[in-house]
């Protein structure tokens, strides 16, 4: 039960982010969450949207390098140590986390996106630890 994340390669030049978001807006894409990972030379914009496949197509048509990956959307309970617990069980299972970022979607707890080198196993472990994860239908 993963969510689809759209990634876009961006050069670190003025106005690129603005351009991507405008193109998506014009295409009627409802962005649920956005996170920008950047280096001095380039950035990778990671988005959750209601229609990820359509979003990817719009971006590719506009000449951007875009792709879809599955990430685990974890609803971290509102309690001290919850995130530590989630990361802890993943680590204990020998799974590597590629990245984590916070999601700005409504609902209980603090939703985050996690990408690991074994998403299926990671999600099972997280669920087994009593922590809820979301699927695409939860985002609609």
């Amino acid at each position, binding site marked *: 039960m993963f969510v689809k994340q759209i*990634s876009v*390669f961006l050069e670190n030049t003025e106005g690129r982010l603005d351009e991507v978001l405008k193109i998506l807006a014009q295409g009627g894409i409802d962005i649920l969450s956005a996170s920008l990972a950047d280096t001095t030379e*380039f950035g*990778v914009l990671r988005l959750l949207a209601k229609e990820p496949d359509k979003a990817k197509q719009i971006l590719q048509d506009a000449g951007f*390098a875009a*792709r879809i990956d599955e990430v685990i959307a974890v609803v971290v309970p509102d309690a001290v140590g919850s995130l530590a617990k989630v990361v802890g069980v993943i680590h204990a299972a020998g799974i590597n986390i*590629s990245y984590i970022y916070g999601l700005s979607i409504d609902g209980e707890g603090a939703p985050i996106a996690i990408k690991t080198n074994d998403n299926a196993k990671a999600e099972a472990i997280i669920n087994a630890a009593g922590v809820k994860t979301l699927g695409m239908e939860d985002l609609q």
Partner: protein
Amino acid sequence: MIWNEAKECMSRDEIEALQSARLVKQVNRVYHNVEYYRKKMQAAGLEPGDIKGIEDLDKLPYTTYQDLRDTYPFGLAAAPRSELVRVHASSGTTGKPKIAVYTRRDIDIWAECVARCLSMAGITKDDIIQVGYGYGLFTGGLGAHYGAEYLGAMVLPMSTGNTQKLIDMMIDCDVTSIACTPSYLLHVAEDLEKAGLIDKIKLKSAICGAEPWTDEMRDQMEARLHIKAYDIYGLTEMMGPGVACDCEYHKGLHIWEDHFLPEIIDPATQKQLPKGSDGELVITNLTKEGMPLIRYRTKDLTSIEYDTCECGRTMARIQRFRGRSDDMLIIRGVNVFPSQVEAALLTVEGTTPHYMLVVDRVDNTDTLEVQVEVAENFFTDEIKSLEKLSKTVHDKLKMAIGLNAKVKLVEPNGLEHFDGKSKHVTDKRKLYQ
């Protein structure tokens, strides 16, 4: 001062008579000693007897970079192995380098040619000269060194890489002249200024070469270091530095016509052009024994002036280079062909062959940025894979061209796409005016 007035100031008739005699001799030498040349001449229906003087030069086939590759390493050697005393090679090229081999006499003639150049720059046996070119396979270091010694100057073989030591010894040893690349000299000037040491140096002249430079750079180095700067020209294939040099009137580079026969051709039609025309410089080694090149296409675009110079020399003057008839770049003295970059990029998984080389000169040092498109199918959501791609490209380029390039990943279609042999280079240095 004129080092060899008998040669450097010959009348045009005398020069041409000498060139004709030497050309006939050279053509005989290569025909009989070099199978590659013999076959080329035979294919053109030529025998040595068909070449009676320089008026027949345009009958001879050209020699190109490709010929050097095809005959690597010693296929063009025209002297027996036992007579060959030295090998040099061009800088930074992929695969097989362009090499040159020399007999003892070739080394002596080279030394004299360099001595003539140094003399033209006012250097005498009383001078103390630092050679700041690399010593090794590159012709710069040993070429300048032998010439300076031949002249009788005292030589400090600094080579490259230690500017602090160069500056220390420049001051401690009362160095009066330096031979190095123009961009390096400006770098030295900057360091001297920063350290407040300009007043401590005794430098009077600089002989700069191995990369194209501008009058603005000359003005800068002359003003900042209070010296006179001279442009020395050469090619590994023909000999090395010292093929030509400019005198104090800076009216072009005097080419030593008793050893090098220059002509200008149209690179498109490959026909010889009348004297004074603009075109590609082609040079024939008149006296070289080790690996004489016949009508070698330098790919440098220029023209040649034949009138007597104000300095008194009659040796023809190669005018300002206007560019190249191929796409070779000279970056920090290293020859770089875009095709080498392309070949290296193709070995990197995940990049399209779409790329752009951006060459600039920042703080008097050449910079190379290689912009590479991230192919759609390679792009990942993970920064570390992209950074790894960038590093792989950097390392492959370093291996291929010997330079540390700054690699910039760009969006697909972020570069203009061209058909066929295309514009893959943006040179912001404006070296050719």
